[in-house]
């Protein structure tokens, strides 16, 4: 007696057999990459190299090469840090929170989103390190008994950052690897090349699909998802503490944690969507990463867009309602001051354009969707710019106001971080299965046993 209890459309389209699914996912690993792959890799590689060269010059001559100067000491590096960390959050959300909520549609995109988390956190972690100017001395950020007899200050949000980002990176990496183990085993058993087999065997650790293992495996996976969920919320909360705990008008605000987390999910989903649209096209994965999935993501983008919009509104309201002159000034300055253009880019890209997703046609149209999600990425970058840079340019004392202009080095290093991100993403698509083979098999039609009453086991 097989009854479909869900009204959901099937996760995998086209009634593929398990072998066909595996074939489809593993194809990029078994075949030589096409021209498109090399073109994409060379573009992203060029960006990456630009960033690397500019960074080396910066290390040689010092951070004076950047636009950072009084009163804007935080500028681009911190804007980029917050931006990239935010991108990472979607991955954990998709893989952990949607897993706990038993959303089957996450399966097609989870692996990819997790990989993007890891790469985004790598990009993010880069920026505070280079912002200190001498990244090779960054070991001092860790509490260890040293010859100076000094310890880090555990009540400082910057030390919280160190713990939050490194924990987030380690946990994401482990979560990702745990998901990969059964896939490594499957790849090990299907490959014919001896070198590949050795590598896959090494990483599969000798997994043999035993149910006695699956049982603990699922428990662990659920536990990790349970840990990752509060973790992901805590990470952006702590990032927002960097600002909220200070006294700068425009930063000192209690809604920052939820506001930042919503923004992170928003920007992260936009980035995942951007990359997935390309990947499903390039690797012919339309049957596994279906339009339904993209539509669901667009719905989440719409929801989080409105949450972000609500936060913008609340900030304005509180600035007026609090009656604090400086607060009021900060928000007027954002909207009508010298950086008004950045503010309006932020408002239009983050709040206005995503409203188009109310229309079903647009939600399901790939080209329009692509434009909107890219705009969201732009808008979210400008949100951080507005919060960090614009607040710093004009605070309490008009005598210490100043303007900020990025230099070519700032822009080039930002470009370089995109290069790093996309290079890693492209290499990932070639090196590892972009979709969890064992999970996608498990949710395809007829893969699970039909319902059994417990007497059947007697």
């Amino acid at each position, binding site marked *: 007696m097989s009854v479909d209890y869900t009204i959901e459309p099937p996760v995998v389209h086209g009634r593929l057999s398990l072998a066909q699914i595996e074939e489809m996912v593993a194809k990029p690993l078994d075949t030589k990459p096409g021209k498109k792959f090399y073109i994409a890799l060379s573009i992203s590689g060029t960006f990456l190299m630009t960033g690397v060269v500019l960074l080396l010059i910066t290390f040689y001559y010092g951070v004076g090469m950047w636009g950072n100067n009084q009163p804007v000491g935080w500028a681009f590096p911190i804007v980029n840090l917050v931006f990239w960390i935010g991108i990472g959050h979607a991955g954990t959300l998709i893989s952990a929170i949607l897993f706990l909520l038993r959303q089957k549609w996450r399966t097609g995109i989870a692996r990819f989103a997790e990989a993007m988390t890891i790469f985004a956190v790598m990009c993010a972690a880069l920026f505070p390190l280079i912002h200190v100017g001498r990244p090779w001395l960054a070991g001092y950020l860790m509490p260890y008994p040293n010859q100076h007899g000094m310890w880090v200050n555990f*009540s400082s949000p910057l030390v919280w950052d160190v713990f939050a980002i490194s924990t987030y990176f380690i946990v994401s990496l482990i979560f990702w690897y745990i998901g990969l183990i059964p896939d490594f085993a499957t790849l090990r058993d299907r490959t014919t090349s001896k070198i590949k087999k050795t590598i896959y065997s090494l990483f599969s*650790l000798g997994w043999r699909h035993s*149910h006695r293992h699956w049982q603990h495996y699922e428990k662990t996976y659920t536990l990790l998802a349970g840990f990752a969920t509060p973790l992901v919320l805590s990470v952006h909360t702590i990032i927002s503490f960097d600002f909220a705990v200070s006294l700068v008008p425009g930063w000192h605000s209690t809604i920052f944690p939820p506001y930042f987390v919503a923004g992170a999910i928003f920007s992260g989903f936009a980035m995942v969507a951007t990359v997935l649209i390309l990947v499903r096209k390039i690797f012919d994965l339309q049957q596994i990463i279906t339009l339904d999935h993209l539509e669901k993501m667009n719905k989440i983008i719409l929801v989080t867009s409105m949450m972000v919009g609500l936060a913008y509104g609340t900030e304005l309201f509180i600035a007026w309602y609090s009656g604090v002159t400086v607060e009021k000034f900060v928000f007027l300055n954002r909207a009508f001051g010298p950086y008004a253009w950045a503010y309006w880019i932020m408002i239009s890209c983050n709040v206005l354009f995503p409203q188009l997703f109310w229309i079903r046609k647009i939600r399901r149209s790939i080209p329009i969707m692509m434009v909107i999600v890219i705009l969201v990425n732009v808008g979210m970058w400008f949100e951080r710019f507005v919060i960090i840079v614009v607040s710093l340019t004009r605070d309490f004392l008009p005598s210490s106001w100043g303007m900020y202009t990025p230099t070519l080095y700032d822009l080039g290093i930002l470009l370089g971080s995109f290069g790093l991100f996309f290079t890693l993403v492209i290499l990932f698509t070639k090196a590892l299965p972009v979709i969890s083979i064992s999970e996608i098999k498990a949710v395809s039609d007829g893969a699970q046993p039909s319902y059994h009453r417990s007497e059947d086991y007697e």
Partner: protein
Amino acid sequence: MSNERKIYGIAALFTKPDDIIKAASKVANLGYSKWDVNTPYLLHGMDNAMKLKPSKIGFIALFMGLIGAATALSLAYFTNSIDFPLVIGGKPFFAFPAYIPVTFELTVLFATVSTVIAMLTIFFKFPSNNHVLHDTPYMKKVSLDRYGIVIESADPKFEQSKVEELLRSFGPESIETIYHKEEVKFPIFEPKFISFLILTAIAVSAGTYITLNKLMFMVPFNWMMYQDKIIPQSRTELFEDERGMRLPVEGTVAKGFIPYTYMGIDEPQEYLSNPLLPSIDNLKLGEKKYLTYCSPCHGNFGDGDSRLKGQFPNPPTIHSQRIRSFEDGRLYHIITIGKNIMPSYAAQISREERWAIVNYIRVLQKAKNSTASELEMIIKETGKNVAN
């Protein structure tokens, strides 16, 4: 395949998830203990069919998570409240709310890492890349799209014919007997392996040496040590007298400066008189300063037994009749302007401290040169056994 090889177990493959569930629950009901089901993905309902107990891995997560929280809190407490307390923004030394973020992060970190390590090593006994099942046709199939069940020969109820019959009764796609592999021995003392170890050791030590002793002193890594600025004691072209340090403008006097009238005179006609009483506080101060500034050359008790090991000529003992007969003011004078090769300590030691040192020298001199009758008197007066 030779029959002499030991049987590991008998395996059957199925094409439908329902079949394997049925087979598994039958095998479980028959009371077999050493058997396993291999499926390409997690089959729901198999836990019940195999009659597996709920996984206990959650306890490890709980336990290690608590350890993580305790580690974070005690680390923050030890460092910021005990070992290196600093007032920051008026917060208390133990600012509990401020420690919550780090505590939370370490809880998650410890729980995650240890759960996974425990799962892989304790529960799975990984890595197990040379398990018998690997590289069998059976493994290749369950890795792809078949559902397999193996009953191991290690099971006490195992009987080859019986098990085969049982498995056949489930209507499997195929049945396979799996044999133990011939054991492969990897000798440790293989020249290749040894040379690999030696090369790694050399590479690691060379790398460490070069990074710590050479690289860190190269441009731009040393730019915090060598900066483009004039530092004290250095020569510079910038000023006419080529001194890196500037002299005070002529005629200016430092804050709190009182001129010392005997400057440059080796033995003045008369000396300043000691303004400090030899109170306990003053003597304690004198002892501290003497041990800091004078003892490296003069020795802890003024015997002239320098700790400088010949890097500086040994001074004479201060217990000589000559020095004992010095007036307080003369000792003060020596500290202030120095004596022959002994430099002046006026810059390091304040006036009051100098007098305190003089008082302490008197104590040292008295202690080493008192007569028996004097000692007796002290014992009487203080009730203490000074001789000890």
